[in-house]
Every structure is written in structure tokens, then in C-alpha cells.
């Protein structure tokens, strides 16, 4: 993903939650059916105070429906939701006062200025005139929009719009902030700024529920991650737990050049390797590299000899640590390429 490759991470990998004191949000066996289809099917998890909780899954997995259930925009067929220990499943208005919600599209008012949009959103949460104007000014400053506060929202760039939408989501100082795909569809620099802002907000104590297509983004920002596939949560773990479970494996990444015609796609070279070395898992990364995964150690020499007999010239072989992307693929069984294609499709 070029956008993320181009920028350094805004912070180190988050491994702990500072100041943790219980859960802020809890979903208890949530079910949402649309006629015969279960869009969300028995989803349970909790979000701890002060953490960034990542919610990952491909399109159609049930992310948006889950967010709608959590924010009160939809009512579950079964199950319950709790905020600060209080159930709000069918009466979400009190809970909504404690939530900040930033949708995947910047949905502020085009005909209002940045400042007016912020004060309007603050008024929706009952902030008085003096208080909302003070907060709006502070947030414009904090988000680097002070110079453009009087400009109409429709004249903002996509990145500025997204920043202002996030500012509108936190103007009433919510207990939890829902961020739905906050960096999708914006330029590299703006995406980087937004990731830094998310990190800053969290360091100031805001609990964040983050959905993203960018697995690397989740890896850099989130304390814990839930994977949702086909409406079911298949894993909720801290990043460390998730990565450690897969770090006992040895992964050899082999880069190569073909000296003769050889299909990298199954059932070509990877299939031949699987037959020759059944004790290893073979994953093809692209046309010129593959990964050999083993629970134990990997015998390099027989592997290189075999590749040579297949007309393959190995240019590099190195041991690598699994990325979250690879862990995601193994945990969910979902090809990352499919997610990327969906993401690109979504942008268009």
C-alpha cells in the first residue's frame, strides 16, 4: 500500500493501554437479520477505556451494520449493547450524548463554514454559545484549520473535510469516538496527519473504535483488534497476542528469477514445492517471491537445490516476521488481495 509505505508510523506499535480502568463499550451477542440474512451474527466484544480498538474485515463482513447497532442508528434483532455499564439497546439517546461518530464520508454541511459546522455540531449536544465557540476555535487550531475556519465547507479539500469531520465528532468530548475508515480516499499527507491526530486524541484519553481497510494502519494505531467475517467475530486479541501466536513459525521469504517458463500461479511452482516439501506451507506473494512457512526450522539447501532443478534462480532468501496482514490472512482465510481490490473499488 503506497500511502502507508511512504510515511513513517506516527507512533510505535501500541502494546498497552495507559490508564485502563474497565470497559467503556460492550456488545453482547448482537444479531441483526435482514429477512433471512444475518448481517451480524452473535457478535460480542468489549472496548476498554483509553484504547484504540480496531475492527477489521472485508466489505460485506458486517462492519457498518455493527457500527450502526453500536451507535443507535439500527436496532438489533437480538443481543444488547452497553455504554459505561448501562444498556442502551433500544433507547440509545442518552448513550449517543457520550459518543462521537465520524462516518466514512465527510457529512458536514456544505453551505456552512468550518467554524459554523463545529458550533452547530456542538449545539446538537447542548453546548452553550460561549462554550461551543471556544471549543470550535480550539479544535480548528488543534487540527491545523484555524486559517480556513471561515471558509465554506464545500471549499475544503478532502483531507481538510475529513479533519473537520473528526473535529466535529469530538467537540462534545465523547467517552468513545467511532471512526469509520478515517483515511480512505484522501491523499498521503492528509492521511498521515489524520493518523497522527488519532494517536494524539488517544494519548489525551479518548477511547477510539476504529474500522479500517488498511491493515497496516490498524497495526500502527490499535491496541486490540477484532476480525469480523460473514457477520461473526473470529478473533479479538491484542496485537502482541496476535503476533506472538504466529511468531513461533519460521517464515523464509524467497525472491527469485525464472530461467524457464514456470507458472507462479497454482498449480505451478508452489504446487510443485508443496509436493516436494509437504512439511512446509507455501504461500506465493507475487510473481517473483514466495514464502515458505514451517512450525520448525527450514532446511535451506534442499529447497535451493529443488528450485534450481525447476529452472529458478534464487536472488535472495531471508527469514521474516509475519505482518499483521499475513496474520489476518491466516486467521480469516481471506485473501488480502481481495480486500485491496475492494478498497480500490470503494475509492472509485
Amino acid at each position, binding site marked *: 500500500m503506497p500511502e502507508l509505505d511512504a510515511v513513517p508510523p506516527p507512533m510505535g506499535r501500541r502494546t498497552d493501554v495507559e490508564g485502563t480502568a474497565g470497559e467503556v463499550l460492550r456488545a453482547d451477542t448482537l444479531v441483526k437479520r435482514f429477512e433471512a440474512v444475518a448481517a451480524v451474527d452473535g457478535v460480542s466484544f468489549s472496548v476498554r477505556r483509553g484504547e484504540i480498538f480496531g475492527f477489521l474485515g472485508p466489505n460485506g463482513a458486517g462492519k457498518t451494520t455493527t457500527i*450502526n447497532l453500536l*451507535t*443507535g*442508528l*439500527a*436496532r438489533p434483532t437480538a443481543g444488547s449493547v452497553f455504554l459505561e455499564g448501562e444498556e442502551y439497546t433500544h433507547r440509545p*439517546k*442518552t448513550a*449517543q*450524548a457520550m*459518543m462521537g*461518530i465520524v*462516518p466514512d*464520508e465527510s*457529512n*458536514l*454541511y*456544505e*453551505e*456552512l463554514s468550518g467554524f459554523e459546522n463545529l458550533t*452547530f*455540531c456542538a*449545539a*446538537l*449536544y*447542548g*453546548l*452553550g454559545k460561549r462554550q461551543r465557540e471556544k471549543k470550535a476555535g480550539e479544535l480548528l487550531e488543534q487540527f491545523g484549520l484555524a486559517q480556513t475556519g471561515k471558509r465554506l465547507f464545500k471549499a475544503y479539500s478532502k483531507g481538510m473535510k475529513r479533519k473537520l469531520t473528526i473535529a466535529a465528532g469530538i467537540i462534545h468530548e465523547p467517552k468513545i469516538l467511532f471512526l469509520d475508515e478515517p483515511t480512505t480516499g484522501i491523499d498521503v499527507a492528509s492521511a498521515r496527519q489524520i493518523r497522527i491526530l488519532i494517536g494524539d486524541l488517544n494519548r489525551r484519553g479518548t477511547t477510539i473504535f476504529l474500522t479500517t481497510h488498511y491493515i497496516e494502519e490498524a497495526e500502527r494505531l490499535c491496541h486490540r483488534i477484532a476480525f469480523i467475517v460473514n457477520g461473526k467475530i473470529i478473533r479479538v486479541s491484542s496485537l502482541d497476542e496476535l503476533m506472538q501466536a504466529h511468531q513461533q513459525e519460521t517464515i523464509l521469504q524467497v525472491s527469485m528469477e525464472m530461467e524457464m517458463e514456470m507458472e507462479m500461479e497454482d498449480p505451478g511452482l508452489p504446487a510443485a514445492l508443496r509436493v516436494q516439501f509437504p512439511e512446509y506451507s507455501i504461500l506465493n506473494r507475487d510473481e517473483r517471491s514466495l514464502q515458505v512457512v514451517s512450525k520448525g526450522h527450514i532446511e535451506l539447501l534442499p529447497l535451493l537445490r529443488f528450485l534450481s532443478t525447476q529452472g529458478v534462480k534464487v536472488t535472495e532468501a531471508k527469514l521474516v516476521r509475519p505482518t499483521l496482514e499475513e496474520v489476518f490472512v491466516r486467521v480469516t482465510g481471506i485473501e488480502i488481495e481481495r480486500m485491496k481490490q475492494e478498497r480500490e473499488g470503494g475509492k472509485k
Partner: protein
Amino acid sequence: MNARLAFWAIVRKDMKTYYLKPPNLSWGLIFPFAWMLMFYLRSQTSLDIRALLPGVVAMSVLFGTTSMLAVTITFERRSRSFERLLLAPLDLNLLMLAKTGGAIVFGALNALLPILVAAFLVDLSTLNWPAVVGSILLTAAVSTFLGLFISVAVKEVFEAQTFSNFFRFPMLFLCGLFIPVSSLPVFLRPLSYLLPLTYGTDILKAAINREGILPLWVSFPVLLIFTVGLFLFSLHNIQRKWVL
């Protein structure tokens, strides 16, 4: 949570971003003015102007409110900014009253224009003013809530316009504005009494020319029932369709 602040913020925002925008403002002025000109130019006497006034006022209110609200809400739903309101900690009834409040005020202001012009041409001192004001406000409210009902039924802005006309034009001909209800074919008369505008027009006719066919104590409650009923029915539809 101060709901009053949120309520007025929504009304003010809608007035600023939609109703008081130059195109809408000019539409709100031009439309009643065009109606007036069309009818008054044909009028030969001051009596004619008074006779035409209830119809022009009723049409100005109807056209100033119905499609305006339907279009603005549909537009906000398309841009997802309406979602922001649904997610605010504001009771749905109050939220929808705030959203419709601006349109009701706009519709009532539209009705003032023909009255102001008529005031220069004929003596309006004998009008039953409380009934005129009450009728204008209730007709504006019921027309706005008709717009709300339409906005829940459609997804696209152009559909809101089309659907508005589907209701408005038959209503114009059946509510006694151009053709007295008593002159309508017998089989159409029951339909006429199913339309809220019939009662609004009848109150105006009674208040301006003492020509109403129903007593005010009947027309006002019926119009009020239509207003409250349409609002509650729209709220029910919103709960069913927008809060999934």
C-alpha cells in the same frame, strides 16, 4: 443535555442554509407574486380581489412548503448529513419538529405577501384575523408534514419534486380553490373532504369573505387532526425506514 439549544440550532441552520438563500427567497417572493398578478389582473373590482385572496394565500403556502421540505430532507439524506441529526442525542419528535419548523415559518411568510399586496388594493379591516393567521399556520404545518411524508417515501431529490406535484395539483382542483366543492361531481366530493387543504381554504374563505361552507369549529379541529396525524404517521415511517 439542553434540547432547546439543539432545536433552535437546527431551525437556524435550515433557515440560513436553505430557506433564506437567494434562490429560495426569490422563489418564495416570485411565486405568490405571479399567482397574484395572474388573478388580480383579471379582476375588475375590489370584490374580486377579496374573492381570490383565500386561493392565492392557500396556494402560496402549499407550494412554499411541501416540496421545499421534501427536497431539503432528501438532499440531507443523500449527503448523509441527516444521519448526523439522527445520531444526535435529540428526541426524534423534537428533531423532526425542528426540521419542519423552518419550513412552516417559510410557508407562513410566503402567505403574507399576497395579503400585503391586497392590503394596498382593498379594505382588509373586516377580516377575521385570528382565523386567517390560524389557518395560515395550520395549512403551513399540514403542507410541511405532507412534505415530510413525501421525504420518507422517496430516495432521490427529483423523486421528491415529482411526488410533491402528484399530491399538490389534484389537491388544488379538489379543495374548492378554483371550483367550489358543491360544484364538483358528486363522486368527487368525498375525496375533497379527505384533503386537508379543503379545510384550510374553507377557513380562509370564511375569515376573508364569510363564504365558508363549514363552521370554523369544525374546520379548525379537522385541520389540526390532519396536521397531528400526518406528523405522527411520518414519524412512524421514519422509525420504520430510517432507524433500521
